[in-house]
């Protein structure tokens, strides 16, 4: 499984998350969708840009704390995700995989979780 970025067919900029208009060249990505952008799987490896250990969680999480981080991916994109790393450090190498990240009632959300590489 992958998380996909949206590559503008006009200028090549990869957007994550999706946006209807290219931030770089202004192309209307959403117009005739399939024709204007290409789905590209984002890299799952990169380095940890920043993180936090969150102790006050929305009610649907039944864990006492959650590690969240922003990762600078090797392909130049950035992503927010959860961390499964006992003692994270700024700049460390990480590797992600897709797991269940949140269960809201019957609604299961999958997303990226990073471990130390």
């Amino acid at each position, binding site marked *: 499984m992958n998380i996909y970025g949206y590559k503008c067919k006009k200028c090549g900029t990869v957007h994550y*998350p999706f946006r209807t208009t290219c931030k770089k060249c202004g192309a209307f990505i959403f117009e005739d969708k399939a024709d204007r952008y290409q789905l590209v799987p984002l890299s799952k490896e990169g380095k940890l840009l920043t993180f*936090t*250990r969150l102790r006050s969680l929305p009610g649907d999480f039944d864990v006492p704390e959650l590690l*969240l981080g*922003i990762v600078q991916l090797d392909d130049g994109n950035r992503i*927010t995700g959860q961390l499964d790393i006992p003692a994270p450090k700024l700049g460390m190498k990480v590797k992600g995989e897709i797991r269940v990240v949140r269960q809201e009632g019957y609604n299961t959300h999958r997303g990226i979780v990073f471990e130390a590489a």
Partner: protein
Amino acid sequence: MREVFVVGIGITSFTRLEYPLAEIAAYPGMMALKDSGLSKVDQVYVANMGGGRVNHQTGLASAVVDQLSLAPAGAETIENGPASGASAIKTGFMAVASGLCDTVMVIGAERMREVNDLESTDFVATLTHPHAEYIYGVTLPSLAGMFARLYMDKYKVTPRHLGMVAVKNHDHAMDNFFAHLHERITLEGIIDSPEASTNNPFVADPLRFYDCCPVSDGAACVILASGDAAKKTGKPRIRLAGVGQATDTLAVHDRKEPTDLLAARGAAAAAFKMAGFKPSQVDVAELHDAFTILEIAESEEVGFFKKGEGHLALEKGETRLGGSLPINPSGGLKAKGHPVGATGVGQAHEIVLQLRGEAEKRQVKGAKTGFTCNFGGFGNNVVCLAFKKEG
């Protein structure tokens, strides 16, 4: 464009309030009418973020205009996240400046404590990107925590600096009857002593309990008027001289430099440009310190200090009452409280009090210019206001 003046103000305590939302909202409206001597207005704007979700009340402005028996005045509810308050003031400014209205009442109101802390945290977290942030459990404190870690590393800001913001704003709030927290704290108690980790546990590290604002109910009001309408009230000539707004990416990771707050920078620059004065000429400011780190970062982005030097000014006491540029004399969001939709109007209320010379024990002596920064989302939508005492 016509000039716009503030002719009436009112506020409730920012705390837990056991009244229906529409009554909380109406109360400062009533006080502001009394303050201005007006008995009616052309238009009412009500800033609110959570009525529909937290209080099961939508279309709040219709309820408030009726509470105040101001019908048939126009009435609209304005939602722009935590910047709803200043957005409503900006809308009121446009209504008066354009000539559409002569008098406009702007109320900000929120009743968040009708639900528990977990629910209110989740409600505010709906401001984040639904797919790229929210599903991971990202909340506003976690975005602030990630921002703080990067910022502190880059600019050599320490936990003691964050603590100094909290201590200062708690001290300021001691002289504000309407503030949520009347609790004097010390660096010893929250940072330096062995008990500090118990007194001041991590919420989203490196941010601790005393780095985060409380969850508050409350409301505030300002009445705006054209030059002629203002003259008739005989109130001090406090002019809303500049309004500015700017936006940034919704997902924080999508920003080129995650430690820059470009929306705050842009909104401030626009407000100063319209007002015709510089950041260095500001006598008193209210910044959006929902988290202590934000007061430091915003004090740089709006132009008071160079990037990376806000904490040095703080250290020297420049931003304390009595310093060269007092920031958050009201106690700020940190200690005055943060009823989200009301906050921006509460900030304007404080600046008007200061420019009128009515701030009593927390008065900034001789203040003639004031500035507010109301920060929505995690910096994706910011509204700044510049005020000037005329004559």
